[in-house]
């Protein structure tokens, strides 16, 4: 973690579950509900939508054609299905975006399926079913877990039905409930398998995290999974805020002035650094820029470390100084630029000439 100091700041820490997989029940499905969030869009919500995150804890892909995620309120036996599609590879997540209760919170990662079920924050029941027929169970404890087609089932909060000894805890505005060991633990007991964590949804594009030994295997050790959500950060710093060439005569050749630009970004796709300038007042003078790229950076077309390239005058498109395609080191990328005049100064009336050079950085 090269950016530990940078990254530890704007984070939401979620930690979960120390869990023992020693109680894995026989007959548990490889496809499970790994995380559930029910306050989407509500006041103080972290996310704008409710979601159910599925996880394949098994060792082979699961074809979701015809499958549904179904929801019923705490005591109800009336279920609303959301259709699923595609496949889930082993160790992969699958994000189902559901309804929003308001306008608060940020968007979920791109969902793999969407539905309109509005999960109650205080209690409810969610099932993963291998067909599209609405369930009819859920009034009493244990009534759904054995129903035909139910691959996994979670009753949370005030739910009348649940797997095992009790319901999972209820999530809140900033917390989801999550299955222990990153989704790998399934003892068929909602109260044991789930705990409250900071909501941290992921979709099928997230890196695979297969369960060691395959889903449902027993082990004699306890494990803890730690999850951080790290925000993207970008920073830019200049070596000096003004560049003063002093007094120059017409026809003089002034040496360029160094201006270092330090950029820090934790975006793994990198960033692009560009520049433009205003025209000199009272009359324009030909200003240019050269640059040396930091390690891992590449210079833009027409930029070199030895020859000054003309700096465009806004609103013309910026000159691309260079770009990176990876996160910057903790100390930042230092772009050593030089600002100077392209050729001897033209013959212009005496006076003070000023302009502004602007450096722009945008994450890729």
């Amino acid at each position, binding site marked *: 973690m090269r950016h530990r*100091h*940078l990254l530890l*700041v*704007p984070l939401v820490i979620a930690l979960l579950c120390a869990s023992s997989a020693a109680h894995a029940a026989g007959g548990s499905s490889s496809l499970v509900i790994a995380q559930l969030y029910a306050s989407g*869009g509500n006041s103080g919500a972290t996310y704008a*939508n409710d979601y159910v995150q599925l996880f394949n804890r098994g060792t082979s892909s699961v074809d979701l054609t015809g499958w549904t995620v179904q929801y019923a309120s705490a005591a109800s036996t009336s279920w609303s299905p959301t259709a699923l599609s*595609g*496949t889930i*590879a082993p160790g*992969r997540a699958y994000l189902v*975006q559901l309804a*929003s209760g308001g*306008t*608060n919170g*940020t*968007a979920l990662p*791109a969902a*793999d*399926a*969407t539905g309109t079920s509005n999960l109650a924050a205080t209690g409810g029941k969610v099932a993963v079913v291998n067909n599209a027929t609405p369930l009819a169970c859920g009034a009493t404890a244990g009534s759904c877990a054995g129903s035909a087609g139910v691959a996994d089932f979670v009753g949370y909060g005030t739910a009348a039905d649940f797997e095992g000894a009790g319901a999972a805890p209820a999530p809140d505005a900033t917390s989801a409930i999550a299955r222990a060991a990153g989704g790998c633990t399934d003892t068929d007991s909602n109260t044991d398998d789930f705990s409250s964590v900071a909501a941290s949804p992921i979709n099928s*594009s997230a*890196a695979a995290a297969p369960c060691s030994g395959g889903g449902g295997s027993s082990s004699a050790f306890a494990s803890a999974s730690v999850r951080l959500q790290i*925000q*993207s*950060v*970008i*920073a*830019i*710093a200049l070596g000096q*805020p*003004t*560049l003063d*060439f002093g007094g120059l005569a017409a026809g003089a050749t002034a040496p360029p002035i160094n201006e270092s630009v*330090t950029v*820090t*970004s934790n975006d*793994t*796709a*990198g960033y*692009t650094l560009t520049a433009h*300038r205003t025209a000199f007042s009272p009359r324009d003078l030909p200003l240019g820029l050269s640059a040396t790229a930091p390690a891992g950076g590449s210079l833009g077309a027409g930029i070199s470390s030895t020859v000054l390239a003309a700096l465009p005058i806004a609103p013309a*498109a*910026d000159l*691309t100084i260079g*770009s990176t*395609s*990876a996160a910057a080191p903790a100390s*930042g990328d230092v772009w050593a630029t030089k*600002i100077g005049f392209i050729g001897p100064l033209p013959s212009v009336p005496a006076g*003070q000439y*000023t*302009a*502004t*050079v602007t*450096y*722009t*950085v*945008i*994450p*890729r």
Partner: protein
Amino acid sequence: MRAVLPALVVLAVAAPASAGAPRRAGLVVWPARTTLVAGSSATLHVANHTRATVTLSVRTMGLALDVRGAPRLVRSSPGTALVLVRTRRVVVAAGAVGSVSLRATASRPLAAGDRPALVLLTARSAGGAGIGVQVRIGVPVEVRVPGAVRRRLELGALRVRRRMLELIVRNRGNVAERVGGGSVVVEVWRGPRRLATLRPRPRDLFPHAAGLVEFRLPGRVHGRVRVVAHLVAPTSGRRGFSVVL
């Protein structure tokens, strides 16, 4: 408008930048990119680690990506008009943290999906003799109009450029995709022997757009080979090519 401006000035609260702000030199902005559901709001934070008070002007612009995914500032893109900046001007004292509130409008029905925009923060030059130097930070914003999400990538042609394989990938879905090693990989084969498995430089692909995904070739691979591109997520697929390296 001039009369309104003072009311929009937000003097940063005197929270020290060390309280929750990343420790970097200069101006620090986070999050560096964000996704806003239409009708929702978000806050950008700006820490001033310079020695002087900084005045920032904030405005919405357009964002485009070139064929290799490099961002380009443009006047307008599909999400520009949907992002409202509540704070047009922010004054952040040295060592303090300021904030910028954004809101995505939902005034008219739009098709579901993502629309790109850019929020541009410009630190005004302090002025003085000589050439003033100022900085801008662009924060990409995806405005997500709720509705059915379609995620679908497709593989296109492959070409070799210097020691780089360039694969065309099309985003046929309606949300922006980050195309990286979790999305597509290529394998380089000679006969029955796999010479290399390559992961791309990550890049973004806007909805309904196509672009080049780049894979750096290892120096040892030369001659005629078979390249197999595998699409892993969000959709699966594969395509084979015969190329000379």
